[in-house]
């Protein structure tokens, strides 16, 4: 466990978190989705969470966002327990979920409107649209945007609240391979520019190695973090370097083994 002295103001700490849902086939029994998950995330870190589908990655992210509550265990931001959703913890889904009835600009400033601070921060809206390169699409409705553009708008919408932690739930999963690689660089650029702590859920091993400081591997039934692997490759990383590929085959071997057992 993490000693209190190490806890920084914007760090995330999870301690023995458990969560179960009613089983779909039998409402009387419950299915344990998260079974004692513990980890901590330092300020400014970018950490990936990988694992097969159904292992509880998204559930974990929803708990951190405050959209669901855990059965037991502690979730802390600094020393504050997480109870309800908060603008300090931004969340970006695989589907950009832009509000289709708002233009790109109004989508990006939605967080400011929701918190009633649009007036003071109006000038920031332009900065964030420029940050994700959408300034000329300000007055366009989302259905005109391509997948990558929509996801950039969703990132800007989450970042405009200056969240302490940005939670990314397979944000690039729906994009084609080329757009995805470009967007990985885009997210890294935003991370390096703003040093926002990021927790990235992905099922793409390459993406996890390319982007993160550490990789946490989850296994299903019961959902648990089985292994944490530090990625000590210098940035910008080469997707075809020897170390990259070695790490990749290690992780694959581990996942393969864990899947069989």
């Amino acid at each position, binding site marked *: 466990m993490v000693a209190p002295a190490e806890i920084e103001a914007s760090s995330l700490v999870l301690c023995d978190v458990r969560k179960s849902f009613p089983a779909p086939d039998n409402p009387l029994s419950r299915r344990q989705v998260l079974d004692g998950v513990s980890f901590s995330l330092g300020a400014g870190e970018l950490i990936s969470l990988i694992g097969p589908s159904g292992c509880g990655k998204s559930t974990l992210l929803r708990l951190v966002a405050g959209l669901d509550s855990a059965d037991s265990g502690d979730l802390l931001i600094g020393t504050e327990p997480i109870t309800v959703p908060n*603008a300090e913890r931004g969340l970006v889904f695989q589907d950009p979920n832009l509000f289709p009835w708002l233009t790109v600009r109004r989508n990006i400033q939605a967080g400011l409107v929701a*918190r009633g601070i649009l007036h003071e921060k109006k000038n920031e809206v332009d900065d964030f649209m420029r940050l994700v390169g959408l300034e000329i699409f300000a007055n366009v409705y989302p259905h005109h945007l391509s997948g990558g553009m929509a996801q950039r708008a969703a990132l800007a919408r989450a970042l405009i609240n200056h969240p302490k932690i940005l939670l990314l739930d397979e944000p690039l999963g729906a994009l084609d391979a080329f757009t995805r690689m470009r967007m990985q660089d885009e997210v890294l650029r935003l991370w390096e520019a703003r040093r926002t702590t990021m927790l990235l859920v992905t099922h793409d091993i390459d993406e996890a190695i390319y982007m993160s400081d550490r990789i946490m591997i989850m296994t299903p039934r019961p959902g648990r973090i089985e292994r944490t692997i530090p990625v000590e490759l210098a940035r910008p990383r080469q997707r075809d370097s020897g170390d990259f590929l070695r790490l990749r085959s290690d992780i694959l071997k581990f996942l393969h083994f864990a899947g069989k057992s």
Partner: protein
Amino acid sequence: MEPQEDLVPTAIVEPPSALRWRTMLAVPFAAGLALAVHAFIAKREPSLETHSYRLLFIEVIAVSILLALLRRFSPGLRHWMANMWPIFTLAIVLVCVWDIITLGFRMLPLPYFPGPSAVLRSLINDRVLLLDSTWHSLVLLLSGYTLGVIGGLISGICIGWSSPIRYWGMPLLKVVGPIPATAWIPLAMVLSPSAIISSAALIALAVWFPVTMLTSSGISNTRASYLDVARTLGAGRAYLIFHVAIPAAVPNIFIGLFMGLGASFLTLVVAESVGVKSGLGWYVSWAQGWAEYGKVFAALIIMAAFFSTIMTVLFKIRDRALVWQKGVIKW
């Protein structure tokens, strides 16, 4: 990464030039035909009776020739003509057929089925009363409709958003709502001293049910992920309701508004023909009482124009409100 092009529906395509001339000539030709047919079959009629009918088609011919000459100056006019002229031609031909069946061969019993010239005469002679009736209908319809929409939106939003209100409100809605508003007429007459007020209330009731139903289903079917995203952006309850759930429900709400409009037309006409002493519904039953079927048909024509204009206005409002859905909706 480029945005998709804003695809404007390209239904209005300029036909090839030979066809275009034929289209242009179709309207004056049809009008000329109608005029000739009428001149032949109405020889025995007094000329005063058929004067305005002739005048109408002479005007149609004159205006259509004028427009055919003017069309080169305005592309908007050109598109409109290319789009509408076939319809107008058919309408004129149908009037001509009506003329032949009624006045020409006397195939339909009189006085129930007067010819188009007689209907036109009634329309012109009784224009003041018809206009006045239309005005009264409009006032009654709009006051009832507005009341019903406001009530329907409020109850629909409450039922859609709050589960306790849904629990208690939904059974009431399901039991009371499907009763046709016109079935309440006997009760409404007893309860309210004024026929106008009770009719407005009945129209409001007729509108309220579909608007409530569709609004509440739209609100409660708001995509959960929109609400989740808004909550992680720091949204409170007011933002979730007014900036997420309601905008997400607007397409549904408009379906309710259209259904309510249809119900309000029905209720208006029935209420006017049984209780209220003004309006188009009253005019129809009054004219029927005097066996003046020319006036009945005249009022039906006005009603068609009146109701379809209101419908068109609502369509325009919807297109405005749902501009963000452009290219998504087709109904």
